[in-house]
């Protein structure tokens, strides 16, 4: 029986147009053997959750550098719960103060990768923490 690969959605919410990190993370994860879908820019939380459902992903990675993370993450979490798909995990990265990282983790974001993260750690995180369906 062939194993289904872990499916990851990499998303860029809001008006933030900085996609260098998101694209590198998407590429690194694809090179590591995961199925990666990249949403492109200017996604609303609704669009992200819709894509996650349509693509049947295991985890969503959100990249946000604009400072709007405390609005975006909670909204995505709320929508995932409302759709009854709270099994879909969340991780993120970008420009996020350490205090907010703690707040986000308390809300249920599994991990936040700040600037300077070695991309091997992100691959390791997905390998260890995300179970295939």
């Amino acid at each position, binding site marked *: 029986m062939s194993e289904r690969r872990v499916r990851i959605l*990499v998303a860029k919410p*809001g*008006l*933030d*147009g*900085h*996609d*260098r990190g*998101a*694209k*590198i993370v*998407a*590429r*690194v994860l*694809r090179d590591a053997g995961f199925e*990666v879908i*990249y*949403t*492109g*820019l*200017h996604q*609303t939380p609704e669009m992200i959750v819709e894509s996650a459902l349509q693509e049947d992903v295991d985890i969503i990675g959100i990249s946000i550098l*604009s*400072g*709007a993370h*405390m*609005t*975006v993450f909670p909204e995505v979490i709320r929508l995932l719960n409302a759709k009854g798909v709270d099994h879909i995990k969340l991780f993120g990265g970008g*420009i*996020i*103060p*350490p205090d907010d990282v703690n707040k986000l983790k308390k809300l249920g974001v599994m991990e936040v990768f*700040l*600037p*300077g993260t*070695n*991309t*091997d750690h992100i691959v390791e995180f997905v390998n260890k923490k995300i179970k295939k369906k």
Partner: protein
Amino acid sequence: MKDKGKKVWEEKCFKPQLEKSGGERRNRFSTISDLEIPALSDPSDLGSWDFEEKLNYPGQYPFTRGVYPSMYRGRLWTMRQFSGFGTPKDTNKRYHYLLSQGTTGLSVAFHLPTIYGRDSDHPLSRGEVGVCGVAVDTLKDMETIFSGIPLDKVTTSMTINGPASVLLAMYIAVAQKQGVSKKQIGGTIQNDILKEYIAQKSWIFPPEPSMRLIVDTFEYCANEVPRWNPISISGYHIREAGSTAVQELAFTLRDGMEYVKAGIERGLPVDKFAPRLSFFFNAHNDFFEELAKYRAARRIWAKAMKERFGAKNPESMRLRFHTQTAGCSLTAQQPYNNVARVTIQALAAVMGGTQSLHTNSLDETYALPTEESATIALRTQQIIAEESGVANTIDPLGGSYFVEWLTDKMEAEAWKYIETIDKMGGMIEAIKAGFPQREIADAAYRYQKQVDKEDKIIVGVNKYVMAQSNAIKLLRIDPEVEKEQVKNLNKVKKARDNSAVKKYLSRLSNAASGEANLVPLILEAVKAYASVGEICDTLRQVFGEYKEVVGF
């Protein structure tokens, strides 16, 4: 003979010493952009190098040594700190503070809704109001931002692209209310849409109408606002997106050439608008690569303006530029180290002859700068200016064998890219084909892999790592800002003559479908307190919206 000299040294001194001491530190030495560099440069590396052809004197073609004859002997570079956050009132306060501390020019950072031509009450603006720049919805906000700031004495740069013509119109209107005419004001709008498609991604409209709007500003400013730079052709963002220094240089200059072509096609004589085209480069970590980049940029531009576009006025051939130290080089780990990075980067910009400079703050990997960190960033420039001595003589590194070798190398590599893009049919075609975007994404990925493997070192990140980082105080934007801004916007909308706004927007819409210069009509709408969102939506309906081809 020269060749024999260096080879003799290598065989008789260099290699033997290395054999005794355990070899070179690395197998390969390269710049941060991975350009291989030699152990030593000497005259033999310069080939048939001619002083007058390669350098000449400051203020003289090809301007390699600097665009003005007296450079910093006459006047220091403008210390122009990019700034803006929260409400217009918050930003006005910070501007007064910066001016009181020695900033010599202003630079406006707008929040993302304004950048995308939307108002603070738009559904997509939720959570974004005032958090990465100042909220500007109408002229009233600009009046507040510049309250108490004499626009006949202070010049302002505005980092705005899609809606650049709108913000320029607002600035003109604010000045007029102060009794300062369009002929007196000085400043810059970034207004460089090509690099938006390539790197910064804050576009609104598709390429053709965007270029039309840009050339409208060239024409309008050439005739009406003579001290204004209607464009800041940028490499900063291209570099931040992960490009190499050569790519930054080549794509920026090729963008510039595309704009010159567009102006000429409009029927503007090149010498009428070219003198006011300005540029904006990154100052990254690799000191000599950056220095060579700036010098090569001046030389390439001078040649292109003279030979490609037939410019006759030397002012058309002169590449004037602003520099910002590299945001992407700052680390979240051990943030005080960033002060050292910014110092080296700023030094490269100064020794490279920049006309104005922004130095980043140490906390910008976490948030917008606090007053304290913004002060340190400004003091960094002032220390370079007053204490280091580097501004006391012009182009001091000119004539260094290594610097001249590297300048020539950067120029040659950049021309390769420029010619490739020429063959693709120009920069707009290259963008449609995804060429510069792919080059940048590949370079960004390669660099990340090098950092992951510790092939390229970032202190505090992959070497000299500490478990605990210094805890620093961060700037927080009050969530009340969004409420206040929306409230003020509604107040303005209630108080203004709404039928006049409707009339002006309708005029603008009709003109947008034709060929008239849109700037005077935008100015009319802005003075009636039409909002950024209303004006841009009017144009969106005529021009459409740009959609990126998604890929990674």
